């Protein structure tokens, strides 16, 4: 069984922490526990929030004490099978052209790679969605090729457009909404990852994502269709297991 510890986050949330690093095995355990607890429909659990390395469990302490909840978590951990969690596989179009990839030249300098090499390395792997956070529908997708990983820019931008695709350390992120941002922007995705009209997110933790380079022309056409609400993006596969 995986090591874990249960920590208080105030009187209405517990954190089940599996480690302090980004690691596929930890992520798998987090997602497996989230699914197990959700399936149990334990009275008093309000919601669970999976992250890279821990699961936050929000609860109503007047219905379920912290000690009773911790016991239920232990019980689930005893019988948890931590196989790879299945998710959907998506192909997300990305335009890496200079109009959108405002930091591509800079990233090329910092990584000593050519722009073409960066695009190839970025669009090569199948990414795992570790978690959603920061903005509605924003997925943290990893892991990025080690030679593309970069720390934050010295000066954050006060505003980047919705759909911006970023290098964020060992993660790649698409920002679903206009936002301040300190990361490196290397393209833009025309598919809305967050739909404010219906309040739905395209991606979910454990989903798998491949980035497919598209031209400015294709990008514009996809944006037009998305704005007319006639763009239907479906997963390439509904049920993908371990693909790493």
């Amino acid at each position: 069984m995986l090591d874990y510890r249960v920590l208080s986050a105030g009187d209405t949330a517990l954190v089940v922490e599996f480690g302090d690093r980004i690691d596929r095995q930890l992520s798998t355990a987090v997602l497996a526990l989230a699914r197990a607890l959700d399936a149990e429909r334990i009275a008093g659990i309000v919601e669970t929030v999976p992250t890279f390395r821990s699961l936050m469990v929000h609860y109503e302490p007047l219905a379920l004490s912290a000690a009773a909840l911790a016991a239920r978590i232990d019980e689930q951990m005893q019988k948890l099978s931590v196989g790879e969690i299945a998710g959907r596989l998506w192909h997300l179009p990305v335009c890496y052209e200079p109009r959108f990839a405002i930091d591509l030249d800079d990233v090329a300098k910092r990584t000593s790679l050519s722009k073409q090499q960066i695009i190839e390395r970025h669009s090569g792997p199948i990414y795992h969605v570790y978690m959603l956070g920061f903005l509605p529908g924003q997925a943290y997708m990893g892991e990025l090729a080690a030679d593309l990983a970069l720390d934050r820019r010295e000066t954050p931008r006060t505003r980047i457009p919705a759909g911006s695709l970023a290098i964020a350390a060992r993660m790649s992120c698409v920002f679903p909404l206009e936002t301040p941002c300190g990361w490196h922007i290397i393209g833009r995705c025309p598919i809305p990852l967050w739909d404010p009209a219906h309040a739905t997110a395209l991606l979910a933790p454990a989903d798998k994502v491949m980035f497919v380079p598209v031209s400015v022309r294709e990008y514009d056409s996809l944006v037009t269709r998305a704005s007319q609400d006639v763009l239907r993006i479906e997963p390439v596969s509904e049920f993908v297991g371990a693909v790493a």
Partner: protein
Amino acid sequence: MTPALGIISPGLSTSIQDLGRTGFQRLGVSLGGALDPVSLRAANALVGNPGNTGALEALYTGPTFAIDAEDARLSFVGADAAIKIFADAEDHSGETIAPMRSIHVRRGQIIHVGSLKHGATLYVAVEGGFDIEPVLGSVSTDSRGRIGGWRGRPLTNGDVLPLRRLAASNREEYRIDGMDLTAPSFIRVVLGPQSDYFSNDEIVRFFAGRYIVGAGSNRMGLCLEGRPIQHQRGFNIVSDAVATGSIQVPGNGQPIVLLADHQTTGGYPKIATVISADLPAMGRLPIGAQVSFVPCTLDEATAARRELAAALDDIGDKLVPILPPAAAVGSRLQECNLISGVHNAAA
């Protein structure tokens, strides 16, 4: 014609809030909701609404709006304010009322809330609530996610907010007595989840310290200013989930207390978490206020939550009818007669 409130000026930042949006943090959707849910529930009680009905939350400077309905009933609960009720756009004197009460208003009247004193928040509830569809189970405005409230954003000049009721009911006007909205001298916290990123000495200093609510504070969090807190194991952690009340300590050592609109995840160690019973007090702390923290156990925190929940369930007991002027005079006369009658009998 749809009954409505017409926003003439939104004030500094006014948005529609209810008790928030639970169940969607895993999608990155903030909880949101009233910074001071106690005042929101009191405002709703004053006009007979269920506690979770969406109301206007004004921050620092309140809105000015016109009544565009036959009549309506409003209530005001929160920080001190000299609320002006003008008969119409030509009226420049108006009548001034204090918050913590309901009031019956008529078409064409203009309500000016003005600046708030001794607190950051004031709630304006309307009998029946706003005629707005909930998003993900809540009418709270989520400005970052652009959902909920009025068009997913704080109010602006010219917004016309539709009301559910065509007109006010025959209900009496009430005031609410015995609500203490003054800031407590200490905010209670439970240590963790990352208190092990700080030495014991540093934790002792955190509790001994006094912090000022800084100018960068907003609905996402209170930026505190005071003696910096030192980390013993660095300040970058792999992002994990955060809760309302989480006290994050970023690299500069100045703590940030997360409030209703906080992001769902964060990458700084969290030294402690404000207990749920003290979050409403935290939410109404204005910029410039002083705050200190005191540790408490989970059991104490749960007892405090139970006590607050019971007080909110009984909030109706705090409502006192405001008698209309004529009736008030009549009853006072009656009181005098009775007393003098007793005197006569004794004489």
